[in-house]
């Protein structure tokens, strides 16, 4: 590991100022950063730990604002939270797919998202929760929708000095589900990830949200498929149409893990499956 300066600021303003420096990196759980530093693939000149800044951890639920998850909340906590399991099952399931329990005890949801991997396991669940991302910097605060956060692999709309502080999930779903396509049962990266969330009224799909990971340069919503489902009663044919529509809306790449064609086909299969389970749960 190359030498670096290490900071433990106690306020967001201080952290933000430090983070505007060149070659500065934020340290949340460290499960990506520290490994990269040990392998010399990450060589920050300064590392800014967020652990001493109050108010960045924990999950709160209230009737007006729904659920709020602090950016420094451990992924393991997201996985096990009763509130998230109940209202945003797909997000808890996504969290449970990250690394091992040891990793999940260190990794944070903010880190998982800010790293901006298109294959991040919590991202599809946040997409179908319509998460609002609160961002702070020395210049003030702003909020972006999770849907607008990513601009490319490893790229976000975050400007120098901006730090994700929390995720707000105002729109619970009565049923949701996440499936990760992978080879190994645990501790694998997503070949693709699909989350579906629905709200039903008398068996009619009032609202459907579908989040897709690792099928485009950024995580995406399958809006065409969502629109197709809205106001209809679920049938195998409908779900098949939704799967096909979701697949058609992707632009996956071929890489060493699998072909673009396989990714597209799996979007179709897993959209149908996650929708069916989300509807069963609703």
């Amino acid at each position, binding site marked *: *590991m*190359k*030498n670096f300066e290490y900071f433990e600021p106690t306020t967001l303003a201080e952290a933000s100022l430090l983070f505007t420096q060149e070659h500065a990196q934020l340290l949340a759980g460290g499960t990506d950063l520290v490994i990269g530093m040990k*392998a*010399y693939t990450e060589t920050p000149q300064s590392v800014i730990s967020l652990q001493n800044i109050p108010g960045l951890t924990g999950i709160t639920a209230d009737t007006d604002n729904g659920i709020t998850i602090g950016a420094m909340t451990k992924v393991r906590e997201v996985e096990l939270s009763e509130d998230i399991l109940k209202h945003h099952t797909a997000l808890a399931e996504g969290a449970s797919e990250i690394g091992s329990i040891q990793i999940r005890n260190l990794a944070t949801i903010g880190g998982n998202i800010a790293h901006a991997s298109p294959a991040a396991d919590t991202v599809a669940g946040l997409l179908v929760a319509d998460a609002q991302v609160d961002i702070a910097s020395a210049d003030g605060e702003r909020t972006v929708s999770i849907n607008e956060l990513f601009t490319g692999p490893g790229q976000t709309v975050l400007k120098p000095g901006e730090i994700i502080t929390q995720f707000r999930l105002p729109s619970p779903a009565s049923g949701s589900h996440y499936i990760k*396509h992978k*080879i*190994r*049962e*645990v*501790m*694998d*990266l997503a*070949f693709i990830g699909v989350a579906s969330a629905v709200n039903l009224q008398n068996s009619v799909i009032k609202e459907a949200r579908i989040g897709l990971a690792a099928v485009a340069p950024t995580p995406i919503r399958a809006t065409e498929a969502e629109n197709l489902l809205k106001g209809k009663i679920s049938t195998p044919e409908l779900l098949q149409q939704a799967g096909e529509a979701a697949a058609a809306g992707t632009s996956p790449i071929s890489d*060493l*893990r*699998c*072909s673009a064609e*396989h990714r597209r*086909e*799996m979007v179709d*299969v*897993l959209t149908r499956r996650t929708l069916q389970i989300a509807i069963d749960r609703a």
Partner: protein
Amino acid sequence: MSEYTVVGQKLPRVDAVEKVTGAAQYGADVHPAGMLYGKIVRSKHAHANILSIDTSEAEKLPGVRAIITQDDVPSGRRVFATDKVLYLGEPLAAVAATDPDIAEEAAELIKIEYEVLPVVQDVMEAIKSSAPRLHSDETKEGPNRRDISAKIKELSRDEADGNSTAIRKLEAELENYADEVYYNISAESHTEAGDVEKGFAESDIVVEDTYVIPRVHQTYMEPHVSVASADSSGKITVWASTQGPFAIRSGIAGTLGIPLTQINVIGTTMGGGFGGRFGVIITHVPAVLLSQKAGRPVRVQMTREEEFLDGRPAPGCVIKLKTGATKDGHILARQALAFWDSGSVSGASIGSTIRVRGVYKIPNIKIDAYGVHTNKSGTAAYRAPGAPQAIFAGESQLDDIAEQIGMDPVKFRLMNMREEGDTVPAGGSEPEVGYKETLEAVADAAGWWNREADKNQGWGVAVGDWTNGCGPGGVYVSVHEDGSARIFHGSMDITGTDTAITQIIAEILTIPYKNVTIRRGDTDSAPYSTGSGGSVVTFTMGNTAKLAAEDARRRILELAAERLNTNVDDLELRDGAVHIITVDPPKSISLGELAAYSLSTTGGPIVGKGSFARQPSTPALAAQIAKVEVDPDTGRTRVLKLVASQDVGFAINPMAVEGQIEGGTVQGYAWAMMEEMQYGENGNVNPGFVDYRVPTSADLPTVESVIVEVPAPNGPYGAKGVGEPPITPTLATMANAVNDAIGVRITELPIKPEKVVDALKNNGHGA
């Protein structure tokens, strides 16, 4: 009931506590005073001419104590590339510095100018006349080189079926190669018995396929590491993580032209080997050269990425196989043409292609195998080197024949299996073997005969054979005044071998297992020992230990006869004491008393010596059955049941033997389902555990081990080598189970979800 009290028992391993508590000393724990950190500078290209290597900037960096290139190798033996690099990650230079970060930075400061050359990484491309040639001096024509075209033609098939697009393309290409002149051939091997053409002509059914098996890494937990220290007198000490300290000693001596006994190799506790930990130049030689130049001890330790780029993994291969059988199930002929991916140097286990003959009575066989150079690192042994690849082809094809003739796969195998006295195709006749017993045992244990399968579930069976190696070894055993015994030897413990040696000696000396301890010496102090690979250790060192214990026993009885004024014939060694059996009441003297007495005798202390080199080994069979469920939409396969039987001759420690069976089976499963070194335009693209997948315990149910014991005449207590056989059948077991579940014959490993989905789209027949 066993007549033995210590051997044959599930006793805890002698190294269990030190391993569990972290007290065991691995290579990375060695830290002599003043130690420097070495770093190897590696090629950034898979094939390139080296125009220049400039170390001047790196030399100026404070903290750098030595930089070496091939110019520093006095013998001229190739340690670093000079004119040309042949694979991504090939060593070009090495640095030693006072800190690992400085070493890293110095390595980056070494400027290398490359002239990039075209790369070839596929064996079927590499043999073409148009392919880039790795070794420009390759002019020699092998005796059968020009016959490759003819051999391809012999094996040409009439109809395409049961194969993926990639395989079909390969089939077509193989035929198009017809009139090529072949290059990049590193070695060849040819075997023939009977007349295959006649055999095929007499067959009712002939099945052909091309099997593609990927290169896989041994993925031992501990990366290569060595610490070398050259003192002012020229004496060299090397702490080496290796399977064979004596082989490393002679390897260093030979490579650097240093007298053999000027080098002392201290084997450190090994974090796995599987055949991949015998390499001399990977870290040991660079560490010695750096230490000689810097005048300080130097550690060279590979990262996991370096392991993938510059380890010596198992070779991948392409095997075209053809089998003929009668419709009542007799196999008449089998022919194979194999191209093994040897990487930049020769050394792939091409001779193992013979394993396609299996354990069956096949009167006519013909095998042609070639090693092929590609722009990859060289290869080494991996648990039964070459056998899993060849057996994958052989056992997959057997199931296809069984299916075509409508015969149960287990019955089909039993019907064709060899027994004692049967002719081994191109290899003499069988000694006493337990092939049928082992297959029947796994079938019974797995519930094969009443097997049930829901939709998309299936059962697969396969067998694999292997014969353990043998080699020289020496053991001393001393009996102390407290009645305990201490063993001294020079072989590296490999998953329980020290435990087996200890059990054997405790058994013969009739003292409690816990009162026998074992100590490994370095090459300066211990008697010579063969390397711990090839399933040799329990066979060789077990026999050696037995001789040493029997030698000690002779001295014990001699001392007791002297002490008790009687004849040796009247004495019995039992429960740690010598008893006169001819008197009433019986008289006895303990081993401790005898050891104390021995110190004041003319003959001296009780020291038993055992020295052994070889005895014929006996083949062992591993038979496995898997039940799987395949998700036809996602292509994912889940193992529901995995049962593994193995003829181990005699299980000296059944717990350790079960561990070997489970470990080998899981490694075979991994090779079948997920492991694969992948290559892009410039070398290995998955040099890490993110995209090189090894299974976790969540991927498999508990492997059910079934121990079969058909004694080996020359093994200690009848023991056969157990380490290697269990990996041999699993690749085919898995492929056969997937085929049974969804009717898809996958001939190109690993059986990744995408391949299954694509194959299903093509009517259950390949994609």
